[in-house]
């Protein structure tokens, strides 16, 4: 079968799977943003205990491959607790925990890149720490963080493919299903690669454009 025929025949199915992939990525990143903000803030706090908690989380998650985390959440936890998770739920949990650790580092680096005089000036006016963080430091830190967040988006998008191992119907899983039917291994994987390529290149170009805009706006 030609590429054109393969695309005509499986295009909608693959696009739907790409949609699932993006859905999984976006949902995971939203949760990861909260996890990252939480542990990132713990990490920049003056409280040693908070720093240690954040570092334990970050080190543990970064020290375990995503596939192991996914197996643990999808197969391990149900065995221990008797609660079965849907593949989507398990996927979102594993991906957000994983991306959350990297987000925490992005948040930490973003906050630390802001001159500490900004926090001091806000505190000197009587603003409590939380308010100073929210109104002065974070708005500036987020500008700095945007390119890294888009990078993390790309990494998480690619990492969704790992979740094919727990049977979640994202793009790689969809490819495997189609190939099991038509044995067009070479062409199908090429099509899937190009699909990823298009989405990811668009994202990284956006990231670079934003980065330029941010450094100009300074």
């Amino acid at each position: 079968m030609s590429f054109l025929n393969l695309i005509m025949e499986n295009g909608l199915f693959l696009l739907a799977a790409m949609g699932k992939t993006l859905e999984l990525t976006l949902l995971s990143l939203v949760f990861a943003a909260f996890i990252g903000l939480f542990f990132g803030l713990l990490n920049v706090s003056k409280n040693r205990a908070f720093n240690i908690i954040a570092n334990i989380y970050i080190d543990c998650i970064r020290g375990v491959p995503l596939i192991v985390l996914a197996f643990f959440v999808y197969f391990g936890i149900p065995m221990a607790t008797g609660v079965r998770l849907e593949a989507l739920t398990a996927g979102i949990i594993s991906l957000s925990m994983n991306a959350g650790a990297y987000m925490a580092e992005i948040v930490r680096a973003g906050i630390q890149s802001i001159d500490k005089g900004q926090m001091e000036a806000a505190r000197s006016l009587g603003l409590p720490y939380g308010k100073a963080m929210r109104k002065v430091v974070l708005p500036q830190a987020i500008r700095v963080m945007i390119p890294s967040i888009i990078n993390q988006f790309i990494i998480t998008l690619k990492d969704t493919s790992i979740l094919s191992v727990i049977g979640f119907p994202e793009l790689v899983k969809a490819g495997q299903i189609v190939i099991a039917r038509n044995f067009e291994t070479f062409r199908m994987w090429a099509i899937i690669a190009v699909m990823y390529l298009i989405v990811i290149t668009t994202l990284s170009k956006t990231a670079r454009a934003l980065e330029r805009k941010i450094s100009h706006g300074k």
Partner: protein
Amino acid sequence: MENRESKISVKGLRKSFGHLEVLKGMDVEVGEGEVVCLIGPSGSGKSTFLRCMNALETITAGEVIVDGYNLSDKKININKARENIGMVFQHFNLFANLNVIQNIMLAPVELKKMTKEEAHKKGMELLAMVGLAEKAEVYPSKLSGGQKQRVAIARALAMNPDIMLFDEPTSALDPEMVGEVLEVMKGLAKDGMTMVVVTHEMGFAREVASRVIFMDEGVIVEEGTPQEVLLHPTQPRTIDFLNKVL
């Protein structure tokens, strides 16, 4: 001076960073409406001392009472205390994400001291006072150093503080911009603001200060009127320092 209410009362203040003791027991009283200039070589602890006055540095030992708040007491509401103590920094520290008027309005509005309208009105008055009313909507990155520092002073004044602390307010400025900032500070002094100023501007100290304190290596070496300290110093370290800077 004895009759005036004491605005700042420091007794036996010590401050260490790790093993390094920066302030080695300082006693200072500042009365209402006084302008105290702190001078001394770099590394003498002037800025650290000033930063202890609004608890930007934690106090290792001793007592610091500012405007009735005992800053050495960990249980006091430090934010409440800071509302009455304005601070101006060497590097301005204007909020880069906010324009000039937003910089000034942030604290009064967030701390519910004023409504947005009141804060805006007050902010514009203060900007007029420092001669920058036309810059209200401009972002800090578009201002010169002198303009930034004048906005920073207006921002601190927006909280109606009883005391203003200045940490080398003109040290980061190009020479031609020093005057405009000192003019604003002189105006404040004339209006009776209680001020503590860490400065290298001996002319300003001579003209405006009610008292000059010369510090070196974490202790007060000499203090008195500008006449006494700047023109007739008695301590060898003061004489040596003044010979170098004048």
